[in-house]
């Protein structure tokens, strides 16, 4: 069975641009969470979606938004990119939102 897939794997943007990251959860998983991992730190919670509803939001500005589609895939959008948005963006799926998280390999965003 396929694991969590994320795209793109790497991307480079310039300040002020917008980016969309995509995530496909494991089949049967209804919850998707997004995390930002800055180099040398642990992942920080951005959003959680369950059954297409936003269940939680971390301490991130409104430039960050996300949604979950009927097939449970998800997109993370970041507007007006800043240099500090450079990070590994991780998507994790779970069956119901709690318990073990299954992570994708991440999308590495570099903002120049």
């Amino acid at each position: 069975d396929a694991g969590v897939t994320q795209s793109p794997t790497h991307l480079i943007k310039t300040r002020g641009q917008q980016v969309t990251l995509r995530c496909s959860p494991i089949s049967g998983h209804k919850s998707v969470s997004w995390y930002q991992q800055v180099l040398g730190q642990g992942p920080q919670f951005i959003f959680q979606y369950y059954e297409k509803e936003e269940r939680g939001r971390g301490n991130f500005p409104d430039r960050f938004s996300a949604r979950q589609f009927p097939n449970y895939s998800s997109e993370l959008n970041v507007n007006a990119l800043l240099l500090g948005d450079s990070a590994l963006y991780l998507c994790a799926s779970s069956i119901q939102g709690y318990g073990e998280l299954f992570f994708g390999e991440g999308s590495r965003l570099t903002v120049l």
Partner: protein
Amino acid sequence: SQQGEEDPQALSIQEGENATMNCSYKTSINNLQWYRQNSGRGLVHLILIRSNEREKHSGRLRVTLDTSKKSSSLLITASRAADTASYFCATDPSTTSGTYKYIFGTGTRLKVLA
């Protein structure tokens, strides 16, 4: 903000030795998990321990949880070069909001020398 703090930040041991890393957290939790991350890739779940459990084993892994001290430890026995990775604890804070906002620590970088 990071809830968990792993200690030590970095650990270097010889193959065959045991590795112990610790995690401290700040608020009451439902459960605590440990994850491994190889060189900037995705995280892999290792073990979950619930707040009413004190110790749990999985293969070469042993996890303890002391809720009174708000701390946990991960022991890897008979380490191998393939165990070289960063290890993170993740806590699920007790909440009634329905949000499962896992909070990760700062990580311990383990290097196992062959």
